[in-house]
């Protein structure tokens, strides 16, 4: 018997009899014999929980991670996650529910989405938010489609200092829709308004800025870029790290049209790359161009406040081939985790997390520059992530750090061979002075 299959052979008999059949096989008679598998699937037989635990713990045991001190970033950060987050998302009424098609029995999910939308709007300084998207990279692509849809233009301009995976995803998405991706060079790591000026035209649909950018630098010409973009009637898409918005100017402050980003940092674990979620917020006038679910407030027939999925005329199950997006799930549970995280921290807490991350990153950076031979990749203001480079390949540096139980950073050679000795180091509020001092000590030892 299988614990997840309720009906027994006796039930089977009773049920068949009740509806006038003799065997389950009769229900499959319409499948041509030559299409029948006619053998067992080449899988193991069913395993019990006890055996699975042994197997999975052995698999997990082949990983290293939980015992290491993590300085990896690149959009995914090892942060303090409040205990309440897991307790809330473990409520089975949340995690075993489907998309809230029946609002009367889905007020939990719907109110969570509505609150999430408000939290994201407040965080990004934008007017409206959707219910979440797949991840940060695909959110950028969806934003590009919005710009195309809105402007009827076909060209998206991005600088080469965005996350390389975002660039990859964007490239794929745009190519298949026959849209043009223009990658412009940056100026010492930051967005070059001059380079944009050279490429932007009346054919431009959207311009993307990532802040902080992939190198961790804080962009310094955003206002000018927004102005230039708008002058060309294109949309400005800003990709942001949500935590940094605790203290950095928001996309709304800068006058961006669309704000996107990856929400992992907001209470979601590392999970080897997923599930995370993408967030997207925009100006009110773009709301009907937005992909994904949106929850809205309404009243029930007794006049009581309630929530429903709304603006569904945008959605694929209504528009079918006219749809500009095929998103029909979001990452609801991750967005719930993010909501709980944002509420647990509150206004002050998110500013603290951002501030501490920056302070600690600067402590480590200063120590490295002061005490070791490593040099900054770019000597510009950064937030909580920075590149260092030295005389030996970054792989060797990582190896030395790993010996001391430290995941030292991301090798920047993924951005080009000129960075082969460079390491991108991320520091969160979770890192301690002691851990950073050890990091520096290892680097000192490499001289």
């Amino acid at each position: 018997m299988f614990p997840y299959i309720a009906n027994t052979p006796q039930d089977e008999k009773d049920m068949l009899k009740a509806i006038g059949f003799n065997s389950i096989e009769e229900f499959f008679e319409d499948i041509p014999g030559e299409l029948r598998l006619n053998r067992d699937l080449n899988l193991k037989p069913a395993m019990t929980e006890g055996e699975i635990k042994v197997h999975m713990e052995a698999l997990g045991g082949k990983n290293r991670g939980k015992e290491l001190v993590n300085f990896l970033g690149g959009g995914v950060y090892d942060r303090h996650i409040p205990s309440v987050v897991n307790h809330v998302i473990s409520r089975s009424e949340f995690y075993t529910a489907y998309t809230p098609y029946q609002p009367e029995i889905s007020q939990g999910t719907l109110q969570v989405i509505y609150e999430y939308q408000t939290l994201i709007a407040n965080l990004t300084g934008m007017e409206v938010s959707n219910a979440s998207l797949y991840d940060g990279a695909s959110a950028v692509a969806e934003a590009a489609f919005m710009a195309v849809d809105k402007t009827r233009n076909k060209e998206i301009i991005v600088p080469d200092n965005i996350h390389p995976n975002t660039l990859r995803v964007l490239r794929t998405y745009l190519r298949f829709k026959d849209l043009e991706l223009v990658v412009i060079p940056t100026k010492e790591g930051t967005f070059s308004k001059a380079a944009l000026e050279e490429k932007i035209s009346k054919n431009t649909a959207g311009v993307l800025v990532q802040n902080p950018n992939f190198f961790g630098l804080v962009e310094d010409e955003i206002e000018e870029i927004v102005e230039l973009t708008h002058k060309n009637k294109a949309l400005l898409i800003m990709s942001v790290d949500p935590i940094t918005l605790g203290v950095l100017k928001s996309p709304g402050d800068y006058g961006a049209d669309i704000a996107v980003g990856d929400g992992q940092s907001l209470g979601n674990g590392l999970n080897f790359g997923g599930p995370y979620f993408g967030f997207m917020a925009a100006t009110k006038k773009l709301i009907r161009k937005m992909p994904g679910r949106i929850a809205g407030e309404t009243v029930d027939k007794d006049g009581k406040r309630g929530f429903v999925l709304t603006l569904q005329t945008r959605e694929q199950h209504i528009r079918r081939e006219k749809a500009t997006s095929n998103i029909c799930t979001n990452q609801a549970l991750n967005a719930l985790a993010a909501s709980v995280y944002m509420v647990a921290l509150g206004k002050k807490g998110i500013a603290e997390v951002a501030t501490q991350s920056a302070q600690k990153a600067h402590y480590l950076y200063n120590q490295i520059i002061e005490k070791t031979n490593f040099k900054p990749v770019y000597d510009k203001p950064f937030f909580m992530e920075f590149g260092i480079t030295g005389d030996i390949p970054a792989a060797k540096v990582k190896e030395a750090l790993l010996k001391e139980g430290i995941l030292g950073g991301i090798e920047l050679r993924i951005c080009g061979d000129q960075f082969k000795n460079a390491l991108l180091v991320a520091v969160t509020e979770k890192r301690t002075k002691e851990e950073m001092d050890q990091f520096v000590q290892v680097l000192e030892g490499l001289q």
Partner: protein
Amino acid sequence: TYETLIFELSNPDRRAFEIPKVDVPEESLESFLPKDALREEAPELPQVSQVDLMRHYTNLSNRNYGLDTGFYPLGSCTMKYNPKINEDMARLPSFTETHPMQDDSLVQGNLEMMDNLDQMLCEITGMDKMTLQPIAGSHGEMLGLMLMKAYHADKGDHNRKKIIVPDSSHGTNPASVAMAGLEVVTIESKENGEVDLDALQEAMGDDVAGLMLTNPNTLGLFEKQIQEIAKMVHEAGGLLYYDGANTNAIMGITRPGDMGFDIVHLNLHKTFTTPHGGGGPGSGPVGVKERLIPYLPVPFVEKKEAGYKLSYDGPKSIGKISNYYGNFGIYLRAYVYILSMGYNGLKRASEVAVLNANYVMYSLKDHYKLAVDRPCKHEFVLAGINTDIAEMPTVNIAKRLLDYGHHPPTVYFPLIVHEALMVEPTETESKEMLDDFIEAMKAIVEESKNDPELVKTAPHTTPVRKLDEVGAARNPIVRWEPEE
């Protein structure tokens, strides 16, 4: 205080959580960042105590209906029980605390699992290689269509822009076609949702990239002529795409790969019991036949002598469609499920899913109109109430079911059936539960006859009553704002 929004509970200085005090010199942000990069005031996030946070979300959860609450026969969504061991394994810190940018040598367990799962899903579907990168079923559809396009383009066949989609298909199908920069050609299905071979023949041509199909179809019926269809499409130079939403009917019994499909996506959150999470995260792996492997997204897991390795070496690859490797934490749950069931359990699951669907369908046949009177697979469609007994729109039947404690079936889909109610009981439900549902469905027919007002004004027992959706769309209030 129990039905408020979290913002309405906020009070400055309250805290639900604190981080440790900073242990490095507390330099001001202005000392290393330009002042005009900083916002003037922190974002308005609510400030509440921890108990208020927990009560808020606990009470919200109690206003939600999940699989652990009750029966969820939502057609085409395969709402089957989400095993608890899946959750426990997915929360093992040895998995959760790995960063996607760690060196391959430090995540051998993750990569081994991914490789194993790839092979298992290939065996179940009859495909040659899988990618786990798509984050949802619709994401998988988009990828599958991109693969078709890439394949034809690589063959120099740039003319093939059309994708044939039956009008009985899932709504995501045509939308995904658009996402991949292709064009939809909708063909009318036969009344039972099966492909009309004449219509297909007519639509075929050298501008057709391929056909999207789900089998069993959305009426829960097996496409008996699938071999002819495959032949027809292949001979015309097209490819066949299999929408895996209905895989729960056929595991261990027949395989899309053997039917002639070139590309398959699976919804792990349907067939393979990963939780739906109130609308995600899902996972939609895509499998392909040999000739399409070169186009799969990077990276893919390779098994080398020195161990597993993530390879980005795909010159013909379409690139990436999501940030890292898909929803790792989700497909890990599916992996645990497949191990839990084994070859024997998966087959039995499909058999019982089909048994349960037929049991419910035939038990309701006097009270409701069957869309097609023929044994179904894992789901079936009712064409509304039996109008000889009473008249009642499907939407009201659905709402009245809420009062009986059941989640309603999918309504008004597939579009080709009038007043459709699409019922998928799944194999995890007991006969007793099915009987309870059958009785409720019959009772609603009786009520529709004897007390139609009761049905029309339903639901009566839910936390909120029928909600004004039209008003919500007309005047969208999509965020809370403080009262001035």
